């Protein structure tokens, strides 16, 4: 595979994975401190999802990972989606 094609193929896969990925909480770890919501650049109230134990389904989520990194209790992780097409 030529370098350019390889690059675009990898980027397409990454985007697809991100598009299908979600931030998912482990509610047992969440103490509702709100650090996740405070640091979300898209102003999503992430902790409400964590309280309910639901993935962050807000369409504004860009999977930047800020909430995951800031959570002091390790509550959040990004669950990447499985790319439907591995390459273009």
């Amino acid at each position, binding site marked *: 595979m030529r370098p350019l094609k390889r690059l675009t193929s990898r980027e397409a896969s990454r985007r697809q994975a991100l598009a299908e990925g979600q931030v998912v909480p*482990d509610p047992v770890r969440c103490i509702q401190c*709100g*650090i996740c*919501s*405070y640091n979300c650049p898209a102003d999503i109230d992430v902790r409400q999802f964590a309280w309910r134990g639901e993935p962050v389904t807000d369409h504004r989520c860009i999977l930047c990972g800020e909430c995951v990194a800031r959570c002091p209790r390790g509550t959040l992780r990004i669950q990447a989606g499985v790319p439907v097409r591995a390459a273009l």
Partner: protein
Amino acid sequence: MPPRFVIVGHGPAGRSAAETIRSREPGAAITIVSAEPDPFYSRPGLAYLLANEIPEKQLFSRSEDQDRTLGLERIHAQAVAIEPEAHLVRLSDGRELPYDALLLATGSKAILPDVPGNDLDGVVTLDNLPDTRHILDVVRRARRRGSQAGAAVVVGGGITALEVVEGLLSRGVTTHYLLRHAHFWSNVLSEQESDLILHRLREMGTQIHLESDLARIDGRGGRVTAVETSGGETIPCSVVGVAIGVRPQVGLARDAGLRVERGVVVDDGMRTSAPDVFAAGDIAQVVDPRTGQATLDILWPTAIATGRVAGANMSGGDLHYAKAAPFNFARLAELPITIIGQVGTGRADADMVAAGRGASEGWETNEPLRSVVSTEPPELQRWVLRGNRLVGAVLLGDQRLAEPLRDLIEHQTDIGPIRETLLAPDATTAEAITVFAGLSRVTAA
């Protein structure tokens, strides 16, 4: 007439009960009585407010609008008595609240040290939001008066003591930490784990005084000016942070004639000995089916879980609380730590007079269990085995094994196939645990 539910206490247990009741009983009258004026907030989050990681308003996870939508009536008052026969709660403002079902979720309260000067302004705990505001206020006032007076002395153990130490450090306060013996949290952590944390605390700038105890607190004009230690040392300071343990607030239940031991005795439906009276959270003493022992958990997830069971059963449900292996995750000296199941060292903790916040009595054990330690500085991992079962684990630093270990401990999985690998930890151990936990989950499903 719609059913009337009264909840005393607005912590995680009270809150989860209220929301559970509302989801089952759209028309019910739900009243939450709280001695604190603030709406529901994250008590563990106080550490992050103290450390200046979030502003105060961020602690409130529910808006006034949400409370209105849920139709929750909040009353700021102290519940002074309950009358189980009459199905009535008496409040400090003279009001009487009749109920069809009552939840006691009064939480626990920090204990003060029994030394002269313990009532001076500047002696602080990290129990609630007013306490945290008070600490920040004392620090601000002290800073205005000069740097020497701005110092703080912290006594106690467990998670809360370090939250106070780290919070004060991050506010630029010179912080002294007194420990009665040579180790930190000695009933839960091994000496090696304690040494790692104390080493990091020193590196962060904490002045640690080992084998040193609080003898008296000196003051002038009602305010703290210094601490005198058992070794005769005088440490000038304006703040004395205390985290020597908490006591469940069981007075209401005891006065009403409910069955009370160290906590309020409840069955697995969170029912107390009085009809239509339930208890949840820190005060609920419930039997752990794993050990047959009734233990107290001062843990946030336990409070939520017991609150949900209580809320469901108050509104006609039949849920049973299955006590899980006690679990908590925290940051100690900026190092993540997970504690699961029975991990106790069998030693006593000289710095605590009762269980601390974020701790479970279920961690402690007097059984001679086999512990295995895997070291890769600055990280420590310890797992505890009883025969072919993992019963506990402590992960300090790297957290990748937290979930697989929790799975294996929670499900009491027979770890026979990887037992030898666990007993001789090396580079392949982590992989073995992860793979085995994954396989067990698939098999169980």
